[in-house]
């Protein structure tokens, strides 16, 4: 999760003399914080990066400090970087061998990468031009907290970056940067394709990089062709690219995991009636599929709403609950016991009082409002527990106050399922992140919501639904109470913790707090 902050001038507590009060000395303690984010290794936070603008050293050239903190917020390294004022640090990932950072220069239209070894020495630098398509995505990502930068770590092997390119239509490029004896490679989608093609990583290890490929006629089309693309991690060669076909259903892959020592892959997602549009139709249930490294389907299992899930939840055959609505799936994971978990969140499209009022008032004044008359009601989290053979054991409903996401004009004509994807892209769901510990015996699902307090100030709550050795527990944090005063932002942290960044606007100071989650 990245913290978007422009020109935040921060006083850093330098060890000043008791008497040292002068504007000159204040300058010494003021820095402009450009970017801040968590450095992740798979689903664990290993530390944080902070990127400060320090000084203007010559015309159009600035000095920056990049500070690396460990997972306990201890400062472990500081690096000086020189660049123009449009330089920002987009993301940082760690793969047990090295730290990899992604920068963006909006003026030069360049994306660059820096790799640091375990002594915090820079060992590699890469850069490329950022095409317009990619620049738009980056700008969008910078405007939205928690947006994915497209950079991932593959433990002990290297790093992989995804970005959009413009061929005949929009496509994608995958770049691999090794941190071992592998070679760099890149893979680009079919340059002659007239379909909008995007890729997202679903699984990677030292042998294979498995991607979900979505092809559409136009950007906003609801009908898509879905494929799985597997690349050899060493060489970038295509191992297989095929439509994931089920004889009976349409499939939408959400995530992938390694399944066994033979290198077979587990894929998870939702499945649909044959012929249905995956992005805009109600699903029939959840599927799991085991494929080998040639893409051959070895096993497949389908958990339908109507029979399997209905034993645990009052859902109809489309997975809809009367109050909560449908379920949008954020992630599929597996813990050390071999159990699988699907993390979902309920959504329901409904009429919006605020939207209707805005439109009526606009109409009366002779103008038009951009709002639709609809909103998405986001309610409870649902965590589905499966045993190692993907039999559904239980569904834990994590109750929370609902939130409403006002939908844009035209939403009335869209299905709730299509709109759910849009709401997710906007960051409208309450689900924030998922953390695992090193041996995968514990994971925590974090979510935030506003708690309605009668006759008092509403509370902003961080909920943590944890599975410790497959046992469920729930912890709630009143973020306002933990933060104290000032504005605060929430960051993921190492397992069993959350991090808050408090900004005191009067003193212009930043305080970072790492607090434990209880389970």
């Amino acid at each position, binding site marked *: 999760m990245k913290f978007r902050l422009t020109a935040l001038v921060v006083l850093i507590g330098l*060890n000043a003399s008791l*008497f040292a009060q002068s504007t000159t000395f204040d300058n010494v303690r003021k820095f402009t914080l450009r970017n801040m984010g968590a450095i992740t290794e798979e689903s664990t936070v290993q530390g944080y990066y902070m990127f400060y603008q320090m000084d203007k050293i010559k015309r159009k050239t600035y000095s920056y400090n990049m500070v690396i903190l460990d997972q306990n917020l201890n400062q*472990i390294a500081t690096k000086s970087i020189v660049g123009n004022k449009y330089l920002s640090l987009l993301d940082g990932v760690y793969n047990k061998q090295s730290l990899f950072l992604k920068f963006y220069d909006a003026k030069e239209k360049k994306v660059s990468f820096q790799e640091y070894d375990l002594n915090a020495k820079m060992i590699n630098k890469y850069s490329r031009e950022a095409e317009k398509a990619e620049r738009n995505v980056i700008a969008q990502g910078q405007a939205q907290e928690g947006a994915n930068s497209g950079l991932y770590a593959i433990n002990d092997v290297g790093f992989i970056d995804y970005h959009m390119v413009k061929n005949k239509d929009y496509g994608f490029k995958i770049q691999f940067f090794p941190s071992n004896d592998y070679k760099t490679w890149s893979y680009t989608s079919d340059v002659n394709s007239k379909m909008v093609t995007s890729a997202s990583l679903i699984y990677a290890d030292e042998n294979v990089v498995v991607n979900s490929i979505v092809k559409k006629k136009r950007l906003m089309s609801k009908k898509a062709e879905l494929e799985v693309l597997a690349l050899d991690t060493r060489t970038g060669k295509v191992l297989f690219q095929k439509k994931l076909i089920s004889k009976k259903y349409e499939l939408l892959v959400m995530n992938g995991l390694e399944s066994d020592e033979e290198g077979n892959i587990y894929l998870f997602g939702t499945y649909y009636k044959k012929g249905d549009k995956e992005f805009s139709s109600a699903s029939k249930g959840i599927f799991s599929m085991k494929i080998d490294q040639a893409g051959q389907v070895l096993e497949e299992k389908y958990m339908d709403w109507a029979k399997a899930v209905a034993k645990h939840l009052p859902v109809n055959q489309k997975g809809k609950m009367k109050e909560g609505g449908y379920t949008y799936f954020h992630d599929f994971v597996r813990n050390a016991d071999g159990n699988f978990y699907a993390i979902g969140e309920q959504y329901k499209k409904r009429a919006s009082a605020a939207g209707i009022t805005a439109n009526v008032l606009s109409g009366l004044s002779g103008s038009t409002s951009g709002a639709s008359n609809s909103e998405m009601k986001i309610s409870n989290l649902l965590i589905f527990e499966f045993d190692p053979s993907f039999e559904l054991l239980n569904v834990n409903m994590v109750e929370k106050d609902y939130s409403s996401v006002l939908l844009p004009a035209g939403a009335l004509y869209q299905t709730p399922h299509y709109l759910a994807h849009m709401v997710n892209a906007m960051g409208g769901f309450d689900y924030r992140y998922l953390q695992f510990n090193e041996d995968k015996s514990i994971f925590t699902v974090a979510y935030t919501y506003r708690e309605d307090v009668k006759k008092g100030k509403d509370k902003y709550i961080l909920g943590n639904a944890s599975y410790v050795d497959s046992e469920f527990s729930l912890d709630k944090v009143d973020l306002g109470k933990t933060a104290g005063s000032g504005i605060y932002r929430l960051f993921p942290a190492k397992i069993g913790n959350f991090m808050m960044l408090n900004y005191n606007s009067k003193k212009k100071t930043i305080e970072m707090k790492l607090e434990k989650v209880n389970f």
Partner: protein
Amino acid sequence: MISRVLLLILLTGYSTWAQKVYEPLPLKVENKEGHLQEISDYESLMTDKAPREYRREFKKFYEGQYGFMQGLMDIGYFVHDDSLYQYIDGIFDHIKAGNPLLSNLKTRFFITVDPSPNASSIGEGSFLINIGLLRRMENEGQLAFVLCHELAHFYLNHTEKGFIKHLNLINSEEFKEKEKEIKKSKYGRLSKSMNLYKGYTYDTRKHSRDNESQADSLGLVFMKNTDYQLSASISTLMLLDTIDHYKYQKEIDLKRWFDFEQYSFKSRWLTVEQTMFGGRVENEDNFFDTDSIKTHPDCEVRWNTLNGYIRPFGPTTGRRLFVRDSAYFHQKFRKFDYEFIQGWIHLEEYGRGMFFTLKQLENNPDDPFLLGALMEIMRRIHKLQKDHILSDHVQKPSSDHEKEYRQILEFLENIRLSELAKLGYYFMEKRPDLATRSETALYSHIYFSNELQMHSRRDELKKLYRKTYPKGKYKKNINQL
């Protein structure tokens, strides 16, 4: 056969002894208004005497100092004990009696809850002596040297002189020129400001080191005019040189304290986290040179200097390490180990509190005060963790921490809320006699049994509390559980 009377005496005596746990010193300031008035009078006097061009700055400065002292008094930063204050007052009186130069100085001292081994002269006649320093004093002579040193700072007006030096520096033509240059520059303003700041810091820190040397030598002169052995000045500096070493060396064995028949110790509680880069990476260029920013000269330099002064003074027959009362010193000062623990609790620093309590327990495993303090700290940690505000009170582990202390932090980091409650509960279950020896331990036992929803056990313990401590300070608290 023991007579009934004797038996009664023995039982009563045992009961009294069993309940006799150390009572920490109260947080109190005697004659607060009188002290503040004296401080205010001194500050008005010194403001009037200040160079005219700096009078406004001095006024502000002294207002800050007054507020600082008032604040400390208000937040309960000082402890009070009549006999202790009389004892230390007596040392001050002895020093002043031998040094007529000091006789007109209006001074006052306060003993703080602060566990750090330090003493300071505020500059307006107040001296703060930390519990953390008192507990490390080996004899009265060492304390006398500390007081002489602080008196020397005050006598030499180091605080005011330091402030004037600062004002002269930042108002000097040279400094103003440099500031102008920085403000005018288009480029490199920050690095120029930092260099100016570096120069300023080096200058003021050197000044501070010079002041410390002056206070050492004048302090020795004051001490020469007392009956104290001058070698105590050397032993004080030698003590300060190793003050970071723990007073008690025995290593903490966490398993010893937290392994129970009903709830065994988990090895994962001792897991040490791995960090990126293996911990802190040395910065290629540190901005400050470490030696140049020290506020004090190295202790070895200091004691060598003093040794040079002591030798010419000739034989030291008749001088003593104890002038006031050695029995009182030994009896009273060893209790400061308890006050040291209490200090961490007052400051709400529970990571260090737990660490130092366990350190002392390794040497004194049955001490009811220490056992009670451990329970109190664990109870507070539990409550803070439950409320998600622990980080203000327990540090996160860092590669910069000393290994043994870090182990405690890792332990607190790895332990879960429910596990902490179980440890507290079974700790007390293993020591049934502790309930009648330490009120705070019993209250913690009730708290943990409530957290674990062991309601019938909790209610039994509540009954015991009401019977044993009918006027106890946790009466209201247990009613709420």
